[in-house]
């Protein structure tokens, strides 16, 4: 019960943030020197056409009225407006683009966890040995390399030079889309060649994104493991003669895992939003590219829609992290007061 109330309270915190995000985006649109209607209509548009667009999107009204119209549509009809550049409803666009980005971010996330956390643990256990140096160098390189540059290098190496992996797009064949998640859809279609195609296309971008996140994860896991390994209960557990495996996993890792999880929670939202660079380079038909395009075109409805989704995902991932704390650590009681 407590948990449900807590989740409700946290989700309700979304409302002011979303309101703020709305206001901010509309203010940005207001200070933009370019005339949005003119940008949408194209260079050859007649003044009447621009005027029609302006009327339709309430661009002649003051900002607060624009926000009001937008909110009214959002609350009453769950309508995010029509994208001024694609001509489709923003909701349809987002539904089409969100799964691609989510798939990419999700696999990068899993890869980063599967490689990053064990690497961090091993690094802490073999402190100042060659293994430790190796993993620290990997982590530091991951953190210091600009995403767009490593993406270009990966593409150059594995696609142009070695010809091992495809580097563009998401799927080369047409299949029935049930969920929008290509891997899932190809399985549902029982189309294994499509599955293979989608999977190989996913490898390069997902790995590039994972490399970056992994760097942080290794650093944080290592630091927090080192701290826990010095604590008295770990020393006691060792002195008791418990097997090393039990000491590491039951005693140390369980306590050391909280900081890495926090970082992951923050990062997942970032991954979803920050895939812009990767999607541009790998021609990945996702939200990041959609957002970048809408910013260039001053496509306000699309911008707002995208931002709302990104903000929601960010807040939800933080919520999941907080709930996860209480599962790992019984001292953290979600919903109750500390102490």
């Amino acid at each position, binding site marked *: 019960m407590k948990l449900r109330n807590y989740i409700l309270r946290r989700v309700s915190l979304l409302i002011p943030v979303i309101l703020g995000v709305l206001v*901010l985006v509309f203010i940005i649109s207001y200070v933009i020197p370019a005339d949005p209607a003119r940008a949408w209509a194209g260079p050859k548009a007649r003044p009447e056409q621009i005027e029609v667009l302006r009327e339709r999107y309430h661009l002649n009204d003051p900002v607060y009225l624009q926000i009001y119209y937008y909110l009214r549509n959002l609350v009453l009809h769950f309508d995010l407006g029509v994208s001024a550049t694609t001509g489709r409803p923003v909701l349809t666009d987002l539904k089409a683009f969100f799964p691609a980005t989510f798939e990419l971010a999700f696999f990068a996330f899993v890869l980063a966890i599967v490689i990053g956390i064990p690497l961090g643990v091993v690094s802490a256990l073999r402190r100042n040995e060659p293994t430790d140096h190796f993993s620290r160098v990997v982590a530091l390189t991951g953190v210091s390399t600009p995403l767009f540059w490593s993406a270009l290098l990966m593409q150059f190496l594995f696609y142009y030079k070695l010809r091992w992996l495809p580097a563009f797009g998401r799927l080369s064949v047409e299949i029935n889309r049930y969920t929008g998640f290509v891997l899932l859809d190809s399985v549902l279609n029982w189309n294994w060649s499509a599955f293979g195609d989608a999977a190989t296309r996913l490898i390069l971008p997902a790995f590039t994104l994972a490399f970056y996140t992994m760097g942080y994860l290794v650093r944080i896991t290592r630091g927090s493991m080192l701290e826990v390994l010095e604590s008295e209960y770990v020393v006691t557990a060792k002195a008791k003669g418990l097997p090393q495996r039990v000491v590491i996993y039951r005693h140390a890792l369980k306590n050391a895992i909280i900081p890495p999880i926090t970082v992951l929670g923050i990062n997942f939202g970032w991954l979803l939003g920050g895939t812009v660079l990767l999607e541009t380079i790998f021609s990945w038909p996702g939200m990041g590219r959609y957002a970048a395009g809408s910013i260039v075109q001053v496509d306000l409805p699309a911008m707002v829609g995208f*931002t709302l989704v990104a903000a929601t995902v960010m807040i939800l991932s933080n919520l999941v992290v907080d709930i996860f704390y209480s599962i790992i650590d019984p001292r953290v009681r979600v919903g109750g007061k500390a102490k």
Partner: protein
Amino acid sequence: MKLPKGFLFTSRYRILKRRLHPITKEFGLTFYVLRKSTLAVIGALLVCMFLFLAIFGSRIAPYNPYEVKIRERFIPPSKTHWFGTDKMGRDVFSRMLHGARYSIRAGLIVLVIAVPIGVLLGGIAGLFGGWRDEVIMRFTDVFLAFPSLILAMSFSAALGPSLFNAMIALSIVWWPMYTRLIRGQALSVRETDYVEAARSRGAGNWYLVRRHILPNCLSPILVTFTLDMGWIITATAALSFLGFGAQPPMPEWGRMISDGRIYMLQAWWVSVFPGLGIVMTVLGFNLLGDGIRDALDPKLRRITEVKWKQRTFS
């Protein structure tokens, strides 16, 4: 603040013996511990090299970074052109030397704008609490809810794409992080006994900020500042890469990577070397930042202090 003689290069013994201003002593100690870490020294060297290039790079560059020589396009790295030439026959090495200063300028401008805003708002929120805290933090929440790169892109599109506007956009995105940091520090310092003591002596808010809160925030700011330089250099390059920052023919590193992108297959050096430049720089700031953080860590510090006492007094 008057710095004593030998402020930077002084022995630990001297630092502890002399009666210095606490802040000076703090920095002297930090520097001393920092010098003991190999990685931090490497980081510091990288940063120094980068700063040197930012200041003198344009003078030591062998070629004019803007001069177009179509006949000399795409010359691979050689003795005459260390990093090769790009699609217009411009020397990549010279362009990189010229470009170094844009990155450092971006980092400094962003931090010079973002840190004071963060300190001011975070300080107010942490020190006074109540409705001021609530308003400021909800406001920062809004900014933090955006994916930062997207927000920076929108601002820079709104202001019109140029390197300077990209910096302004990044500062708008960056201040909330400092606000959070400072607020956290202020909250923890506010509860300490010495602040309580100062309050009971009748100290005013301004006194508390000046004597207790700011000095305590200095080290976390220093660490974040150093680590953030790397971030901002990457972010500026990313904005330029996407076309929201530096415009051609400016030799900004992110822009150079993006210009060379389509010629990757015939001339990899055009994109690879500027990228390496960014990696080295960011690596330098990360190593230095980690080093400073370790040097400021009270736990590690105590060990050194004990060692020092054993050495000197036994």
